[in-house]
């Protein structure tokens, strides 16, 4: 069965690009427009991987990661943060929130697939 990925980003173009890229690599993709939406969708089913942006209205990526980690079914699901900064602060915060890793924007589709493959195969 195809692995499922939840991708959370407030930018429609990034969402489309990520979804298209991952779908073409054989993943099943659901997208969400902000952290709140993402959290809700994550509760409708348990995904194999969550990719989230950091800066979003209503609920940001770090809060989403923390909220997901508080749910039993998401304790061990890998979560990657897509972010435009790879600063140490961001890494510390991401790690503390419980994220599995990060991927810096801008990225190209190949890089995205490569990273996702490394994480969930």
């Amino acid at each position, binding site marked *: 069965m195809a692995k499922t990925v939840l991708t959370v980003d407030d930018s429609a173009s990034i969402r489309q690009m990520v979804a298209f890229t991952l779908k073409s690599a054989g993943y099943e993709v659901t997208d969400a427009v902000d952290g709140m939406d993402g959290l809700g969708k994550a509760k409708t089913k348990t995904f194999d991987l969550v990719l989230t942006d950091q800066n979003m209205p209503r609920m940001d990526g770090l809060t989403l990661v923390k909220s997901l980690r508080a749910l039993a079914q998401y304790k061990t699901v890998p979560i990657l943060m897509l972010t435009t900064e790879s600063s140490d602060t961001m890494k510390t915060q991401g790690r*503390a929130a419980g994220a599995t890793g990060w991927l810096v924007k*801008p990225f190209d589709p190949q890089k995205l697939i490569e990273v996702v493959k490394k994480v969930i195969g």
Partner: protein
Amino acid sequence: MSIDMSQFYQVFFEETSEHLASMESLLLGLDLGEPDAEQLNAIFRAAHSIKGSAGTFGFTDLAEVTHILENLLDRIRKGELAPTEAMIDAFLAAGDVLKDLLAAHRGEGEAAPGAVAAICARLSELTTDSASTTPVAVAATGSPAIAPVSAAGYDISFMLADAAQDGAAAIANLQAELGALGTLCLIASPGAADPAWHLRLTGAADTADTASLREIVEYVATTDSIRIAAIGSSAVADEAYGLFDQDDNNAEAADDSFGLFEPLPEAAAPTAADDAFGLFEPLPEAAATAIADDSFGLFEPLPAATTAAAPAPEVIVERRVAVQERVDRRQPAANAKGGADTSIRVGVERVDQLINLVGELVITQAMLAQAVADIDPVKHERLMHGMGQLERNTRDLQESVMSIRMMPISVVFGRFPRLVRDLSQKLGKQVELKTVGESTELDKGLIERISDPLNHLVRNSLDHGVEMPEARVKAGKPATGTITLKAYQQSGNVVIEVGDDGAGLNRSRILAKASERGLPVSDGMSDQEVWLLIFEPGFSTAESVTEVSGRGVGMDVVKRNITAMGGRVEIESVTGVGTRMTVRLPLTLAILDGMSVAVGAETYIIPLGYVIESLQPSRDMIKSISGVERLIHVRGEYLPVVALYEVFNIPGTVTELDRGILVVIEADGVKAALFVDALVGQHQVVIKNLEANYRRVPGISGATIMGSGHVALILDVAALAGMARNALPAAA
């Protein structure tokens, strides 16, 4: 596989023009004297989003301008720079340049040559100008990674070519050559995890560029392994992503060396995860040390799922607070000159009527959106455009109307100084009360209802948290304890913290008390889980019942009240250092994030805050009691099943558990599974009072009107969870 990025351009163009338009109107609406933190955040987000997408889709000119813009905005929103008229002008001009660039990319006109360079220079000037006048800002942003453009520095990584595998000599040559161009430092030499060399060249002469550097490196390295990028562009391959899977010992080294990938698979394997990363079971010692190191340690946020102590989130909070405090200081002045003629008094019912009407408008807009969803957007471009505009306007209107009901939390905070003074005298304690962020606003209805729970929390801190002066001195703390009340907005929530620097919660005493009360406990429980026990009904560890708070009623009521408001409460505590209770509330009572589910022909809304997960059960998860399928076995727990079709008497539904969906909910510490036919979707709904329009119905807390025009009932999850418990005499 190669992916044609141009297929996403159209969406990118639309989204970017939307961002630019909203950025412009926000900039124009910004009050320089008293900039609104939320507004600044929104402007920053617009620039940030444009930058992220533009970079991804290869529009480097857009990315370049927004990068500088974003840096300035970031510093403004963090309170490091005060916005000036000149900045706003420059930002608006930058917006114009971006619009031109965008038009050029769309093939609708041309951008003036040199415009990008000119605006970048103008923005950079603002950065340096303000940096020289505000020394604090320099200190805070002095690192090269944040500096706007540092073209003179390059990160270089490569792997030695086989031919040059005699190693040391080749590297020495290379270092000499690159060293001649500027200052070269070795970031990381090859290791088992990463066979590449990482060098950093700084202070390079103007003649050095990526291409010329590449030529030099190519002598010794395999061509396709070479990565050269200007510092700060984050384009060096190995820094572009990473995983937090290093153990804490080498964490520091890993951060410095470009966040390299460690072999990963264990991350995904549930069984190995705890050992591999220790992310999920907070280690009390680790947390305690980290906190002791940090001067703000008391308020270290430690979410349940984390072990790594995180000073960083706190930094954000402090900065937000800093902005808030500035606003606070300005408030009296503004009030003084504003006075009576800038405000009018209106009856609450008139405001509520306005809110109601806007609610109706939101519903109408949703209906229209649904009606045109299937129309070909190309043929009806103008209609679609109008619909988009209507949606934005409706949303803005709704937000402004909602803001009328907003009141500053100082209304509630204002009563605590007296309470603290009186109670501390009664208890013989010395306590100082600090309040931060009093001008944080929340809905009038919430203000009224949060008052009692906060009262309880403050009393609790006074009574159980802060120690007697002698005990404090003995523990090496100042005799006077501090209770801090803090309020701020965070991503759509209002957060209120009640913190004290007292004794902290006592893990073993709570556990002992809990088992005495017959609550299910084990020594393996995480601290977070232990702390939550104090919210259980009838729980109190106070040795003697005091007049102030020790009757053991209270904390469970606090939690119930807060949950009823759609909020959450969290506890962080470190023995000997203090306790912090964090209450998160939605900004308003009138709108709710819900999950819509179908039962027969009916649609119900489950407030999202209560939902834990949804699943389609398999036969072996279902357990029967006296021949009736009443329990479900999920993640090691047996949960009672509440079949909504039974509760609400709905014919024609799915009745076999394994053919429908179970939505696991938690309310008042009780978990249950609601049985429904199917999940429909997720919506923000406008809450309509059912009692006012009809009558009270058990299990229903309100109603809403869906995009289709149908009425959907909002479930009273707490009541349903109660029903689940009562329906299960055998299991109780």
